[in-house]
């Protein structure tokens, strides 16, 4: 059996007195597509943010690609990671945000090509050629010289996906990437992600409220509530034959709201 690419052990995270993640354990295998679902405030987005090192942890341990994320070894002892260690570890991970977070002062092409040039020392022509290939892949080949403010939400999100892919991370985190989109723009983004899931062996973690998409996309679904995993399993099992009452009542509400699961 392979080593898991992400290993989370007894993870705890609190904001002040509010505990959002409380002793969480789970592993993710290389290439696995994981959907994290659950009610708002269940801690699923926080997990992605912690993996992207946007939040500190309050306790526990995370390993990414066999190395501790928030710890490092110094003089034989394990100490909290410094910025240099985090910088090294972030190479493995990319993230797409709910609100796109494109750089508004840079063109679409620069948004994608900037990081490979700055962080991997790629030559500008090479980085831009790859950026154009990625734009082609997300169906925006003709938008390379646009500014982000000239794009629709769905187009922005596809650029953001291309930007994250340009660094060729082994792990991609998608944080409610369609939640800020107008309903008619959701499909074009999901389409791109579906292709990614089918065509690459990238490990993907997806936080979403689109249950139908989670069903099609994921190898495994994790249902979260109050910072813990209530239930997990293959999508067919979670969506059609959930075992736990919490999962059942959550899914009932989702279906009552008119969603396909």
């Amino acid at each position, binding site marked *: 059996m392979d080593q898991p690419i992400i290993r989370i052990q007894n993870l705890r995270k609190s904001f002040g007195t509010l505990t959002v993640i409380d002793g969480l354990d789970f592993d993710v295998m290389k290439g696995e597509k994981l959907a994290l679902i659950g009610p708002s405030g269940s801690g699923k987005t926080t997990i992605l943010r912690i993996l*992207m*090192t*946007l939040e500190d942890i309050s306790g526990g341990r995370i390993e990414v690609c066999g190395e501790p994320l928030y710890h490092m070894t110094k003089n034989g002892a394990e100490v909290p990671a410094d*910025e240099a260690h985090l*910088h090294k570890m*972030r*190479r493995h991970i*990319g*993230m797409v*945000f709910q*609100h796109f*977070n*494109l*750089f*508004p*002062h840079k*063109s679409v092409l620069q948004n994608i090509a*900037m*990081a490979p040039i*700055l*962080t991997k020392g790629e030559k500008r022509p090479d980085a831009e050629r790859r950026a154009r290939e990625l734009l082609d892949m997300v169906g925006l080949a003709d938008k390379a010289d646009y*500014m982000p*403010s*000239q794009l629709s939400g769905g187009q922005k999100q596809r650029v953001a996906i291309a*930007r*994250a892919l340009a*660094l060729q991370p082994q792990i991609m985190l998608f944080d409610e990437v369609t939640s800020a989109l107008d309903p008619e723009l959701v499909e074009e983004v999901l389409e791109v992600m579906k292709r990614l899931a089918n065509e690459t062996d990238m490990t993907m973690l997806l936080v979403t409220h689109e249950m139908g998409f989670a069903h099609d996309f994921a190898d495994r679904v994790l249902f979260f509530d109050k910072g813990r995993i209530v239930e997990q399993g293959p999508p067919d099992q979670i969506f059609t034959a959930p075992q736990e009452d919490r999962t059942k009542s959550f899914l009932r509400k989702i279906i009552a709201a008119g969603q396909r699961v």
Partner: protein
Amino acid sequence: MGDWSGYLTLILQGAWVTIKLTLMGSALALVVAFVAGLGRISRRAALRWLSTAYIEFFRGTSIFVQLFWIYFVLPMTGLWAPTPMQAGVLALGLNVGAYGAEVVRGAILAVPRDQYEACIAVNLTRFQRMRHVILPQALPLMLPTFGNNAIELLKATSVVSLISLADMTFQAQVVRSQTGNTLLPFVTILVLYFAMSSVLSLAIRSYERRVTRGLDGVR
């Protein structure tokens, strides 16, 4: 009044001193503003403390007194005796730089948190974040206030006449005492000050247009 062209030359010589003071003072103020502004939001407590102390001190005391300290008191320490021009540039630059530092700090903090997070997600170093993402977005926010500061600095240059540096105001006083005519020299320098500040605000506004290109619809 036949010598008026000679007196005008005198005032124009003063105008040149005023222009030099404004340009050098603004250059120093700009550098100091960025150093102290970035210092105030540094992760190092000592830098934050030092920057805050500098800003509060130079905003909290009069530029007139600062100039006197630099020109008259500093030489008493035996370290350095600045020329009037050096003292003038230093006092103006440090005084206006303290205001500018707050502008730099405010503009940097006004860039949304989203942008920092995007920088981390694409793995930029702290320096690269500042250089390529945060400052280019903060600069357009700073410029209008920098424009005000530069004009304030131009007008404050007249304090150097008090340490007998022959700037425009000083020369107008000279002309007045030699000719007994008050109206002409002071109308002349009024017009000249206004012309200089107009050039300053036009220059800054056109630069502002250049750096905000593409950011329309964002703010």
